[in-house]
């Protein structure tokens, strides 16, 4: 469905609410996806399709809400969904639910944002895409034949339109594409896997990869590293000075910090007090900054919130001090933070929650680093740079954590965990490799431990935010590497010391 059609549908559904008491938000989404996957030289799956539909969120005039949605994008259903939503809202009012009338305060906006894609969905045919992905997959297998390889390519286009009772009508298109290589390697009877990706807005990702093969080189380097990890020893568990790559730094900023400043979490956040964000709290050393906001061309780009407000770029931490949170229209004010259009939803079928877009962690104290073409060459450059700047301590392990496998945080207690692909001791000239082990601790301690950045900003670490059982595109990063001091509240798992 095109933007013009989806706007017309939302307007028509909203017209059905005229004369009804209360307030209505209509969210419609038309999503198309093409995906293909190759496994060890065979085309394993090519799939086309999408998921479209719309939802009606109704509010009684007292502010109790109800929600109804359908995966049929048909105007005839509009009246049914409106009736269902308002009936549920009234039921909700009767059980003493917490009322929320903040939506009445939202600014009226009318905007139609053009599709930012360079190659619009469908411009490159599926057969051409297949050809390109097969070619990339074959090269990778030839280059690293001892690995078992899967290559996937996904191309998505989401057309959104949000309309509200106050006349607000915004529509926008989110294009996304990602190329991924997943390898499994074995050594000495043990196996390890590695996953590496390159993302962007559209099929340009494939054209760029065909031109420079940078993902292929990374995949082969990571597979060689994974092979070395298979037979690597475990580290003794303990507290170490750490260097984390920007993928892990994105994880730290997103999981360990970003969730703790979302406005709906203030009653349970380590960064909240009596339901309000602890603005003014020093959470990191001077010079540490955390920023969240959409970047054009990025995996998590979204120009408007799912409630129809402009998505703002927010400096959350400035010079080590907590200055703002990620507030949506429903809980921002109550949480003591400005409303910044932070509401995002996986689809028309879910209630939007305050959440991040692209979050990046930057430090004023940055050591320059010239990225190398190959992984272990870059690790050597990291070691040399740190030595030249007096950052490596004699007789002490300095551990470089490579690759981000995901993480989890309890925003209430501030406990976090992250997992990496493997670990290298850059204090040792032999650069010994160790098994991955859990990187865990308290989020405020981890932030406090950040002492500097290494290299320029890299913000293309991608993922999916699983908050509230939804799956929403997220991204972010930091300097190429972040330096962290040893901290008694931040540890690496591993064998018992």
């Amino acid at each position, binding site marked *: 469905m095109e933007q013009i059609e989806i706007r017309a549908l939302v307007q028509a559904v909203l017209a059905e609410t005229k004369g009804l008491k209360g307030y209505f938000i209509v969210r419609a989404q038309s999503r198309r996806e093409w995906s293909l996957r190759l496994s060890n030289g065979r085309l394993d799956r090519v799939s086309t399709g999408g998921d479209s539909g719309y939802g009606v969120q109704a509010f009684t005039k007292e502010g109790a809400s109800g929600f109804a949605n359908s995966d049929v994008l048909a105007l005839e259903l509009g009246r049914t969904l409106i009736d269902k939503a308002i009936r549920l809202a009234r039921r909700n009012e009767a059980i003493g639910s917490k009322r929320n009338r903040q939506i009445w305060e939202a600014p009226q906006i009318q905007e139609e944002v053009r599709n930012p894609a360079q190659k619009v969905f469908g411009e490159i045919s599926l057969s051409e895409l297949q050809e390109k992905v097969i070619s990339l997959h074959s090269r990778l297998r030839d280059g690293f034949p001892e690995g078992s390889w899967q290559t996937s390519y996904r191309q998505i286009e989401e057309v959104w339109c949000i309309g509200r009772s106050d006349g607000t009508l915004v529509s926008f298109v989110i294009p996304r594409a990602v190329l991924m290589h997943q390898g499994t390697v074995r050594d000495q009877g043990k196996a390890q896997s590695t996953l590496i990706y390159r993302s962007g807005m559209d099929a340009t990702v494939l054209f760029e990869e065909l031109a420079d093969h940078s993902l292929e080189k990374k995949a082969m380097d990571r597979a060689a590293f994974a092979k070395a990890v298979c037979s690597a020893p475990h580290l003794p568990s303990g507290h170490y000075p750490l260097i984390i790559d920007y993928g892990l730094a994105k994880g730290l900023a997103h999981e360990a910090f970003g969730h703790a400043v979302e406005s709906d979490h203030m009653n349970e956040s380590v960064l909240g007090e009596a339901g309000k964000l602890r603005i003014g709290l020093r959470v990191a050393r001077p010079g540490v900054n955390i920023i969240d906001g959409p970047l054009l061309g990025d995996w998590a780009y979204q120009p408007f919130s799912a409630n129809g407000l402009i998505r703002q770029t927010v400096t959350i931490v400035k010079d080590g001090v907590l200055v703002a949170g990620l507030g949506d229209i429903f809980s921002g004010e109550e949480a003591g933070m400005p409303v910044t259009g932070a509401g995002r939803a996986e689809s028309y079928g879910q209630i939007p929650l305050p959440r991040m877009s692209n979050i990046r962690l930057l430090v004023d104290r940055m050591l320059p680093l010239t990225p190398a073409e190959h992984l272990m060459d870059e690790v050597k450059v990291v070691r040399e740079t740190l030595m030249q700047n007096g950052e490596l301590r004699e007789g002490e392990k300095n551990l470089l954590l490579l690759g981000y496998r995901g993480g989890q*945080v309890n925003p209430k207690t501030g406990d976090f965990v992250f997992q990496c692909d493997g670990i290298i001791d850059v204090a040792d000239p032999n650069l010994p490799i160790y098994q991955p082990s859990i990187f865990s601790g308290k989020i405020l301690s981890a932030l406090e431990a950040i002492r500097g950045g290494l290299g320029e900003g890299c913000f293309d670490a991608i993922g999916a935010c699983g908050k509230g059982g939804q799956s929403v595109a997220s991204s972010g990063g930091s300097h190429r590497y972040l330096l962290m001091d040893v901290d008694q509240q931040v540890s690496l798992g591993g064998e018992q010391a």
Partner: protein
Amino acid sequence: MKLVAQLEDLLYQSQQAPKKEELRLSAWRILVHESEAVSLGIKDNSPGSVYTPPSYRQGESGEVFLVWADGTCSQAIVQLPFKNDPDYWPKELEQWKLASYEDPDATHIPSPEPLELVALEDRAIEQIIAGKDEVLFDQVKQWLKDRPSEAKMQGSIQAAWGYRHVRTSTGLAVTYQQSQFISWFSFDSLVGGGFVKRRLIRPEEREDLWVQIVNQYEGMKKEAPPVGPQTQVILSPSMTEDMLGQFVLPNFSGDRVIEGQGAFSKENFLDQKLVFHPHFSLLIDPLRPLELGSYMVTPEGVPAHRTVLARDGLLQTPYLRVKDAVRWGAKPTALPQGTGGLYLKHQAEVPWEEALQGVEDGVLVLSVLGLHTQEAVSGSYSLSAPHCLRILKGKIVGRTDVKLTGNFLADLAAPTTKTAQASLSNLPYLMIKTGVQTL
């Protein structure tokens, strides 16, 4: 006209009398779900907050798998068209043809076989969907009334009901009703529990679950002595499920085994290699009445039947979809629905109450952080588990925080590993000796 009927018409015509010869189908398969669901949540002790309002959802969508006359195949996700356009499906068909690819192993569409009947639908849930939804609102009110006064409660309750349609060009035409009921709650986001089946929770189950979680919450209030290297680690049933889902299930996936991306090789299965302790068996059983992992027929049209993945510790078969089965040279097996339908059996299982009495020095792990980040192929884990319950001399004595280090595949092979039966779960408590230290 229903989606399944539109698709049947389209595909039948494309097989028998296509408008263009290049669009002729030789075989096809359709899966369509029609469903309706209602839900209600609690956030921070508030029922039906703006983030968890009472909600209604209806859906009608599915997928098609097509084999073209030239031997190529296509698959696509399908929904009802948004406007009444007679050219919609013919255009879709052309689009699907453009997306066709060669995968000879995938082109086999099984012939219909007799189906075993299994109960998948609770009529009481259909009534909820039809509007008699007081049970959801009453349950939420009851939870909030009974909750520990100091606890910040989160929760959700959802009922779903609908039809599942499977059609194939080989003559299978199955439509059946199925239902689903999910409820969960937590206190302070630290302790929680849930119920997931194809039927409503019974009053006694609701009471048992509530008492169990409240007791765990109360147990968390007191600091307990730290663990030592000899402390026995006990995984709660939900943790057992999570660990099986992370480390075991992926390694029994047929396509991963065939592609050499699992912990076990095809030869390991053919040789029936001993990988777990002989007391353990692992199976998929989709025929248990009203379980979430139960079904009548797979999306590919294969009738439900029990499949033993490992018997007495010996590998038997990975789970095989039709394509994997063709490549493996065997019949398709039962399929898990997530971890639903997966059962772990131990020959010496005892009830949990009895097992607890025998624990001198233990720690009960209710949840861990970061499990999904662990390496499935190796089975190794390094996990942080804040908020565990310490057990001393057969009694829960308070809260402790631990770190776990080990290998789950090795845990299942160890003679020291035992299980204890859980009354509210299909999976057991798992009692293991593994690396444990204070967090």
